[in-house]
């Protein structure tokens, strides 16, 4: 066998270049029964990276509750799929693009959106909604304002052009993200009656391997090693090339790929994401247990100087790999040409199970893909069992904050980056393209209508990092319970969950403890709600110079409602009676500074998951059966903030607060969990709540233009709304 690319690099230099350690090198030698040759080291490096192999998380991800009667796919494919009945299926997933977004925020965020969309339409599902979970650092930190502007611009530029509406989002700020922002993109696609799933398992000896979409360039080669380079380096020319996203190309790819899938022309299809051609081809081959021959010199190139290794590792965007029967190639090419794209045969399916790589008619590598895919290292990283009780609470403080004036404190919150409107962000996103959006980013959940059955699909993103800073069990439980609650009180039954687990180094046992606790807790809550985890992504090493980010297991919970008509609003209306419904598990809260910078005031208690989950499902029934006009979950900053946010045209006159609110401070504490319901027929709601034994208190009735809370607050709405709406521009 010819070894084309032998260089003089010493082994140590190779380890550095390929980010491999001695132990893994020895493993490779053991599997191959010789030393890796030629491009093999590059292949191992790519497929054994944390990103592709999930080597530190795999043993724990298996614990996820991921099956129920609806689940069609929840592992082994690009994205999970559930069956909604009536012939409708949905596929959704969430993925991180943190590091690229810190380097080049516009392109990093844009390609993050592009990548997650490809994961969805690869399954044969037409993407119909997206969402973004963003964590930024302190707004005064270096580059932070331009990072915010760039990330939002990139998501807007890409998502709007592709034509998939952004229906909800989450944005938070904390200094732990100063040097490592989080950009997590969610996408959901639909398959309507008669539309079949597409899978990535290659099969059929003699079938062709076809490359479609953009040509291969130098984009993102050895992107992983970028992290270790200092950005003060003058050598701009030597840096790995930034991946550029082209939403226009992606749109063409969506339409053409869906067309070939609908016409049943492909055997298997896979997008070229991280580690590009290598991961897509090796996974297709390994899953199908068939061999593949690939002629790398047939790969369409943008840059003719690329070597075989470059071609294997390039992360150029908007490319797909598909396998088809030879007789169907012509029709496939017609369809792609119609959409202005090329489809090029670069190989074929072989008997046996080896992948054979050719360069100018010479075989440069033959290897069993299972060695790289199935036999990737799996690490049982050390962790501790979470200590229950106060020892688990890292940042618990008992500092009793003081509120001098309710109105002043409220206005301070409404004009801070923590409490002000995110309209500046979401007005840059097209929230309605497709004409199916029933609730947009200004609401507490995003809702799109299913075209066929006219049912509503709701989406709410979870994980509130300040709770993770308090305790990973509470934070992780909340990252499922909170979005489930948001959906339930609008009448949406929680169906399934995707997660994007952003953590620092798994080699740090403390971080690993939080990781394991998060996985186990999320799984437990999902099981109680019968909403399985159907897809996800793990992003480790989110740290800079040893300082870790807040562990952030972001989630996307999807729910369904029988129709999109008369969904309870987020805002009070005329002649409504307002109720506070509660199931107190834990009290937290404090002033802005305390909650977001320092220690958090919290009770020393755990959340009873079973109890809370069944309470949420009770509220789902109430929301659907009791003609609820308005509903809202209370969150950070407690009742005063929630009431002010729900009061746009109509406020409320609260003449009697429940007995657990005794002080001004209590108005700003979060008592997990409480929700506001407003109805026109109070007694009917009261009966329903009593019949389920739910704790509630009547707060008062709505009134135009004013918000009155006993003797604590008496204000016109205009001023509060002004603060909420217009503060962003002053802050950034």
């Amino acid at each position, binding site marked *: 066998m010819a070894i084309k690319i032998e260089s003089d690099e010493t082994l140590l230099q190779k380890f550095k270049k390929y980010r491999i350690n001695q132990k893994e090198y020895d493993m490779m030698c053991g599997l191959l029964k010789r030393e890796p040759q030629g491009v093999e080291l590059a292949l191992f490096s790519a497929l054994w990276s944390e990103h592709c192999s999930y080597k530190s998380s795999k043993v724990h991800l298996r614990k996820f509750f991921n099956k129920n009667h609806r689940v069609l796919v929840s592992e082994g494919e690009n994205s999970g799929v559930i069956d909604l009945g009536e012939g409708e299926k949905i596929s959704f997933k969430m993925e991180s693009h943190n590091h690229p977004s810190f380097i080049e925020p516009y392109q990093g965020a844009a390609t993050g959106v592009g990548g997650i969309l490809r994961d969805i339409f690869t399954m044969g599902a037409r993407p119909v909604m997206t969402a973004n979970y963003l964590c930024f650092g302190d707004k005064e930190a270096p580059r932070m304002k331009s990072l915010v502007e760039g990330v939002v611009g990139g998501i807007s530029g890409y998502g709007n052009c592709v034509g998939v509406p952004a229906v909800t989002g989450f944005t938070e700020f904390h200094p732990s993200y100063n040097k490592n922002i989080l950009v997590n993109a969610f996408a959901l696609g639909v398959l309507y009656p008669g539309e079949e799933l597409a899978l990535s398992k290659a099969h059929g000896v003699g079938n062709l391997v076809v490359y479609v979409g953009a040509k291969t360039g130098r984009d993102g080669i050895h992107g992983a090693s970028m992290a270790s380079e200092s950005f003060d380096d003058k050598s701009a020319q030597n840096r790995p090339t*930034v991946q550029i996203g082209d939403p226009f190309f992606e749109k063409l790819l969506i339409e053409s790929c869906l067309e070939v899938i609908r016409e049943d022309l492909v055997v298997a299809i896979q997008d070229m994401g991280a580690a590009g051609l290598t991961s897509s081809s090796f996974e297709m081959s390994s899953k199908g247990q068939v061999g593949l021959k690939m002629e790398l010199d047939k790969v369409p190139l943008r840059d003719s100087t690329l070597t075989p290794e470059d071609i294997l590792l390039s992360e150029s965007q908007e490319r797909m790999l598909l396998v088809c029967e030879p007789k169907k190639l012509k029709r496939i090419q017609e369809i792609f040409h119609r959409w202005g794209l090329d489809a090029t045969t670069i190989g074929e399916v072989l008997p046996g199970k080896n992948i054979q790589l050719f360069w100018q008619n010479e075989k440069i590598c033959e290897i069993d893909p299972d060695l790289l895919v199935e036999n990737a290292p799996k690490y049982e990283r050390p962790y501790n069992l979470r200590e229950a009780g106060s020892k688990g609470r890292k940042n618990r403080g008992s500092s009793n904050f003081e509120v001098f004036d309710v109105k002043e404190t409220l206005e301070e919150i409404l004009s801070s980056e923590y409490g002000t409107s995110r309209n500046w962000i979401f007005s840059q996103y097209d929230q309605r393209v497709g004409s199916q959006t029933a609730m947009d980013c200004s609401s507490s959940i995003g809702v799109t209508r299913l075209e066929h059955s006219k049912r509503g699909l709701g989406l709410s993103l979870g994980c509130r990092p300040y709770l993770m800073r308090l305790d990973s069990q509470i934070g992780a439980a909340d990252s499922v319970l909170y979005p489930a609650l948001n959906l339930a009180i609008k009448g949406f039954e929680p169906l399934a969950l995707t997660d994007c687990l952003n953590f620092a180094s798994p080699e740090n046992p403390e971080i690993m403890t939080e990781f394991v606790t998060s996985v186990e807790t999320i799984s437990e809550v999902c099981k109680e709600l019968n909403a399985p985890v159907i897809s996800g992504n793990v992003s480790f090493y989110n740290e800079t110079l040893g300082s870790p980010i807040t562990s952030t297991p972001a989630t996307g919970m999807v729910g369904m409602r029988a129709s999109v008509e008369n969904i309870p609003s987020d805002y009070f209306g005329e002649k409504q009676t307002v109720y506070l419904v509660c199931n107190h598990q834990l009290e937290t809260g404090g002033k802005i500074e305390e909650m977001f910078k320092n220690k958090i005031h919290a009770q020393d208690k755990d959340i009873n998951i079973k109890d809370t989950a069944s309470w949420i499902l009770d509220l789902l029934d109430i929301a659907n059966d009791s003609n609820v006009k308005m509903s809202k979950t209370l969150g950070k900053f407690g009742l005063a903030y929630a009431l002010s946010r729900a009061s746009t045209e109509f406020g409320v006159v609260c003449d009697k607060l429940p007995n657990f609110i005794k002080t001004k401070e209590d108005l700003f504490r979060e008592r997990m969990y409480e929700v506001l319901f407003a109805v026109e027929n109070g007694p009917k709601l009261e009966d329903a709540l009593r019949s389920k034994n739910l704790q509630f208190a009547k707060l008062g009735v709505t009134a135009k233009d004013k918000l009155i809370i006993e003797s604590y607050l008496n204000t016109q709405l205009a001023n509060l709304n002004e603060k909420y709406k217009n503060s962003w521009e002053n802050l950034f």
Partner: protein
Amino acid sequence: MKIGVKVLPRKEVLDTQGRTVQSSLSENGFSVSNCTIGKYIVLDVNAKNFEEAKTQVTKMAEFVLYNPLIENYEVEQL
């Protein structure tokens, strides 16, 4: 003194706009093998000669006018 700053995508970086315009031109029967689209910035600076102006403008380019991750620039006298 009028100075021009030509900002173009780096050769190895994908120029999405150029790619689309090139393919549209080709489809309409024009023979074009490549198309690159960038920005042209005209600055009026106070300087005795081009060398001095170039030094100033180079500083501005490095400060904000181009993004070294994806673009190159050239300074020209107008």
